[in-house]
């Protein structure tokens, strides 16, 4: 804003002074927006009260009274709607996080495979990407749920792996570990092994810098990580007791059960999003100039090193911003889980809770805020990461 006194007329009114006028209009605009918002809020409240529809967030303390098939925190029917919110939120986050990890791994493999010198690998990757990114995600979810998992045998004819792991149309049943005699010894030993690995890595780097001799770091670290906890288990007893699934009258009980709805939504979403990530990765790699590859090759780097040390770090700068969008898409698409009965935020909170309480405005507002919060968190994290890798630029 200008503070040049000469433009201001002495005794000028509010409307003739450009600075005052600018302020005036902005204040009027803000007041109008706030007043409109207040009017909407007040009118909604008045109408809800007039029609005898409960409003407010008091319902969150009422007992829910319905069962939920998958909950990461303790939940029973006598818990509150507030608790249902957390169950739904965690279930949504579970899908998002697992989906993002799987989609990233698969996507990077696809992206690299798209540029492979091997004709077959290259064409297979292209086929995959063109197929999966062009089919709507909801159809893919239905396909995995009804056509892939649906025809699996029932619990009594489960496919089993040595009577420890069972696969059937009720999901995947795994033995569940619980703390055994050597539980603490095992974790302490693992921690010790990790520290030893760190020390070893430093020493190996120092030696290579000093003498140029390489040390087989990967294999020795792996050996440490396996051997030390194993020794601890031998000395202090088994760290885990296994709760093995058993067939009972209707279902296989005990152990861990991964419900088929979760499998379907995670598989479908990661397969779908991986196709997009694959293209992003390919584009990122191709954005690195050919001279970089040739220069690195002429320095004697092997193809693996070339990719890991030269290409990928530079490609990441191009990859990360569009990758963020793909992560956001996956997190938002996780709400499609409601279509196959997976108890996520939308199905539990914006569905069942909304219906049992009838408080549509509150539950929808909460649900939308949750997705907004999840998306903004992903955005912020990825932006922070982007900044960090951008700093390595010369």
């Amino acid at each position, binding site marked *: 804003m200008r503070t040049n006194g000469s433009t201001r007329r002495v005794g000028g009114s509010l409307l003739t002074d450009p600075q005052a006028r600018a302020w005036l209009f902005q204040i009027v605009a803000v007041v109008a927006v706030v007043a409109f918002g207040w009017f909407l809020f007040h009118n909604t409240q008045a109408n809800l009260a007039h029609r005898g529809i409960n409003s407010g967030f008091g319902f969150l303390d009422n007992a829910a009274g319905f*069962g939920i098939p998958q909950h990461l925190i303790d939940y029973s029917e006598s818990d509150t709607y507030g608790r249902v919110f957390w169950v739904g939120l965690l279930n949504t986050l579970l899908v998002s996080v697992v989906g993002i990890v799987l989609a990233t791994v698969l996507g990077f493999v696809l992206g690299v495979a798209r540029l492979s010198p091997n004709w077959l690998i290259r064409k297979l990757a292209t086929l995959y990407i063109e197929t999966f990114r062009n089919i709507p995600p909801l159809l893919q979810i239905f396909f995995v749920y009804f056509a892939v998992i649906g025809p699996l045998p029932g619990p009594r004819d489960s496919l089993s792996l040595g009577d420890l792991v069972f696969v059937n*149309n009720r999901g995947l049943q795994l033995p569940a570990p619980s703390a055994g005699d050597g539980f603490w010894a095992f974790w302490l030993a693992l921690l010790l092994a990790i520290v030893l690995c760190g020390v070893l890595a430093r020493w190996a780097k120092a030696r290579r810098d000093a003498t140029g001799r390489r040390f087989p770091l990967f294999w020795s670290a792996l050996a440490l990580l396996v051997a030390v906890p194993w020794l601890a288990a031998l000395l202090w007893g088994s760290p885990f007791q296994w709760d093995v699934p058993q067939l009972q009258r209707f279902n296989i009980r005990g152990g861990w059960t991964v419900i088929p709805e979760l499998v379907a939504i995670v598989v479908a979403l990661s397969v779908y999003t991986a196709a997009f990530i694959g293209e992003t990765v390919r584009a990122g790699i191709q954005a690195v100039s050919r001279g970089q590859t040739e220069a690195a090759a002429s320095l004697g780097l092997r193809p693996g090193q070339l990719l890991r040390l030269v290409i990928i770090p530079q490609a990441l700068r191009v990859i990360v911003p569009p990758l963020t969008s793909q992560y956001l898409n996956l997190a938002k698409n996780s709400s499609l889980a409601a279509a196959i009965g997976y108890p996520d935020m939308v199905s539990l909170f914006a569905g069942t809770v909304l219906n049992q309480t009838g408080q549509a405005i509150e539950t929808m507002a909460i649900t939308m805020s949750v997705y907004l919060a999840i998306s903004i968190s992903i955005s912020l994290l990825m932006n922070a990461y982007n900044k960090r890798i951008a700093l390595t630029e010369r």
Partner: protein
Amino acid sequence: MTRVKSTLAVLGAAALLGASGVTHAGATLDAVKNKGFVQCGISDGLPGFSFADAKGQYQGIDVDVCRAVAAAVFGDAGKVKFSPLTAKERFTALQSGEVDVLSRNTTWTSSRDAAMGLNFTGVTYYDGQGFLVNKEIGVNSAKELDGATVCIQAGTTTELNLSDYFRANNLKYTPITYDTSDESAKSLESGRCDVLTSDQSQLYAQRIKLAKPDDYVVLPEVISKEPLGPAVRQGDEEWFDIVRWTLFAMLNAEELGVTAANVEDMAKTTKNPDVARLLGAEGEYGKDLKLNKNWAVQIVKQVGNYGEVFERNVGKGSELKIERGLNALWNKGGLHYAPPVR
């Protein structure tokens, strides 16, 4: 899709609440007359209650209630449009004004009546919750269902009764919740769940839709009271009365022996004062309801009395073959009892 729909409904609700002022009694009837039809919320496919037949026409008890309201208001049962709603969408659709009447096998409960801005106008069908199981699992009673996986529809009283019943009997279960009854039926067939639970009338209806109905059996236990009836928005008593008395007219007609076949003759020749008042030959009872004099004649002529509607849709004249049982008139051992027209 349902998600989008319900979100739209909520946005619609917000817009409506923002735009319209406070409603006055009679607003619904005026609006209905202006647009020329009754917008009625029905279920998304339940034989006997509301479903589209081979010709694409909606059929069923719930549908007939809507048609009866249209007959009462316009003298033409055809002046009605239907909105198929899932259990999850139904209340928002009514609250937001998307439909004028919700006639969708909805259980009358205190919280729905008092806290959701709805009024139930009566009971069209006395139901109770039951269980449908595959004969293969060899269960004869619901008490043997410990550890079972149960398929249910989201946002129903069924969901709550189920949890109450299993808790009260100290049984464990895993609920799998779907949006539509078709999805839960599909899951029962594929073996994803052992049991399908719903109101008994629905179980019979869903059973005949399965590929092999004879492999499935409805267990004897009825674990809840489910009085199903139409609902309207709270705050418009005039419209509430019209929907309520439409149902009462159908019940009274059955009680007085008025049928679709004889209603016109009876309206002209009757000596029975009860019949004369109902059919508008005596008094101005239609006018009190802001309807035509012959409102009840139109209902019975075009839709039928309650008994006819019941038998045609779910009783002897239908595939379901459900007995009258609790749904008989009070003087035949059932629960249906309509106040008199006078």
